[in-house]
């Protein structure tokens, strides 16, 4: 299994583990400091989740409201059932608009549909402009973290990469490297004729889309080129403009530990006057790609409440050791382990629900209180359901006998007595491969308890009668 192999490779990479430890620890500390400034953090989490639940229960209605309002303000709406359809829509718009230079700001949905590869097949590969995404695009890699895509790369690796690809003097000064990327990307922005972005929230009431960022590249991407394409999953919609407040309190604090990211762009349709700044055309692509299926049960539906902050990655003891790439999926970490099997099918990601210790740290930090462990267990149960056969029969038999014995105290004592006498240990090779199974104690707890109880009565008798 590739997960097993890739996770092991990651564990043997001290540079990667050092980078991961430093980054996830720092993110965790910053998050804790940032949430302290919110008077009622738990209340904010509950409210945000309630808003998401309300939206998801009426998702059809809110999507209709959002698209009607966005359309009214001049945006063009496109619906994509799957990744191929979304890539086709975006590729067609790019061709119709005669786009030569495409700039792109960070979007996990675009990673999910493998948009860059699809556009490259048409000979128009977009340039990633978020610094982290730009680094991994130059390196020919994929993001390893939702909010910090190049978290796995060291300064030295980035310096060597820039020296090779940008022809700059090798420097491992973060400021010099950032300046080099700024220069290279400014030229691209100056000539860009199409911008592609993601969407953090879409407001049904007004038809507004909101994009959060720190660098300014999303602002450039959505305002310089004459065409802007925004790609969003159908779950990004929220009912009211005022609902943005609670999500803006939660998302930056949970993601990067900031009170607010440097920029929020709230875009409602296209410019009203020709002399205004901004694109002539705004295309909003709504992506299903397996999301509507998750509405079928409350446990899976909560996956759609995710606001992509990445806090669960930083908190996860598995992610902190192996990083994002070992998961072998676009979405990594705990949320990736539950989203991916639902998006691409359990048969193609059956290993992911097991890439967790079920410790629950992800649930504790999730700003919208997604019960990720419950989802992991739900998906594991589905994996088992599908693997009917001999192993399942044996497992069933074992658990039936276990239940029968545990429900009958006398039978239990008798069985354990025999086991103790014959020094039998249960045949559990998969368990004992990594762990020790302690041998049975010579006396059972029950025997000890009974003997103790007798002793205690005696000593109590001594105390009361001999004084």
């Amino acid at each position, binding site marked *: 299994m590739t997960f097993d192999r890739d996770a092991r490779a990651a564990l043997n990479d001290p540079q990667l583990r050092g980078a991961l430890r430093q980054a996830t620890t*720092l993110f965790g500390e910053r998050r804790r400091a940032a949430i302290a400034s919110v008077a009622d953090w738990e209340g904010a989490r509950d409210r945000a989740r309630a808003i998401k639940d309300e939206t998801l229960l009426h998702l059809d209605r809110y999507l209709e409201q959002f698209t009607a309002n966005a359309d*009214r303000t001049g945006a063009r709406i496109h*619906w994509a059932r799957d990744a191929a359809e979304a890539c086709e829509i975006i590729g067609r718009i790019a061709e119709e608009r005669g786009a030569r230079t495409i700039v792109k700001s960070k979007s996990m949905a675009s990673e999910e549909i493998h948009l860059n590869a699809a556009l490259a097949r048409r000979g128009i590969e977009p340039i990633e402009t978020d610094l982290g995404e730009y680094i991994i695009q130059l390196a020919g890699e994929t993001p390893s973290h939702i909010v*910090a895509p190049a978290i796995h790369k060291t300064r030295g690796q980035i310096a060597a990469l820039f020296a090779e690809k940008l022809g700059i003097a090798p420097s491992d000064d973060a400021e010099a*490297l950032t300046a080099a990327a700024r220069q290279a990307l400014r030229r691209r922005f100056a000539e860009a004729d199409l911008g592609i972005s993601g969407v953090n929230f879409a407001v049904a009431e007004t038809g507004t889309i909101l994009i959060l960022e720190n660098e300014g590249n999303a602002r450039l991407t959505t305002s310089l080129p004459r065409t802007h394409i925004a790609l969003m999953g159908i779950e990004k919609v929220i009912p009211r403009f005022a609902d943005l407040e609670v999500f803006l309190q939660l998302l930056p604090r949970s993601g990067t530990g900031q009170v607010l990211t440097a920029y929020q762009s709230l875009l409602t349709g296209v*410019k*009203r006057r020709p002399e205004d700044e901004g694109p002539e055309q705004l295309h909003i692509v709504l992506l299903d790609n397996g999301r509507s299926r998750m509405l079928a049960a409350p446990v899976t539906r909560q996956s759609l409440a995710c606001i992509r902050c990445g806090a669960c990655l930083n908190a996860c003891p598995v992610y902190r050791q192996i990083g994002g790439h070992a998961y072998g999926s676009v979405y990594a970490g705990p949320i990736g382990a539950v989203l991916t099997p639902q998006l691409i099918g359990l048969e193609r990601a059956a290993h992911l629900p097991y890439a967790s210790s079920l410790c629950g740290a992800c649930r504790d930090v999730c700003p919208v209180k997604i019960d990720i462990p419950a989802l992991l267990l739900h998906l594991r149960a589905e994996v088992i359901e599908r693997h009917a056969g001999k192993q399942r029969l044996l497992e069933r038999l074992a658990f039936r006998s276990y239940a029968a014995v545990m429900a009958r105290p006398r039978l239990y004592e008798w069985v354990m007595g025999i086991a103790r006498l014959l020094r039998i240990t249960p045949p559990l090779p998969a368990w004992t491969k990594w762990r020790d199974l302690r041998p049975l104690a010579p006396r059972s707890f029950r025997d000890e308890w009974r003997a103790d109880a007798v002793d205690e009565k005696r000593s109590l008798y001594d105390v009361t009668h001999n004084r």
Partner: protein
Amino acid sequence: MTSPIIADPARDQILRSIRENLATSAPLDAMTHARRDHPPLVARAPSPEPRDPVQRFTTQLEAVGAQWTLVRGEAEAARALRRILADVGAKRVAGSDAPLVRRLLPESLTGLTRDELFTCDAGVTSAQWGIAETGTLVLESARERSRLASLVPPIHVALLSTRCICDSLGDALARVDPASHAITLITGPSRTSDIELTLVVGVHGPQTVHILLLEEE
């Protein structure tokens, strides 16, 4: 609706799938809803401490790495603005066409092409609102058309009336002009931590953000 209603099989299929899947889960939802009390959907955040909003705002500006100068009246503002630009050695200054910017710095450049804008040393714009809670500037396209002047040059100077400082993000969201096709919230300089989480300011946007706060005479 401005566009004609065209049959869109993708739209119909997605909406149908949403409805069918929600119908499947409806009985389970009825069970969970009976057990759970929902918190109020639109609860107001507790009101912030009753301190001077200007002082709260400037404290937050410093926390996010922005600079500020408080001036009284437009004459003093014009002098302060020229001093700020001279101190950083800005020669080519992009100005927005907002009336306040035209009055304070009439010689600033407007109507620039994309290429011209990329060669400017500084940009001067108005800001429609400030947010005391977070040290944030709010620029509305309906009243500030030249938002690129706040983004492309390495230095951004924003003019803001002290009367327009809101307490919280929620207050600002309630007051912004919905007729704007673009509302931009700016909190401090452009920043990145994508290289080993080392903070670097001025990656795609300005390295320096200076807020000129105008008090009425």
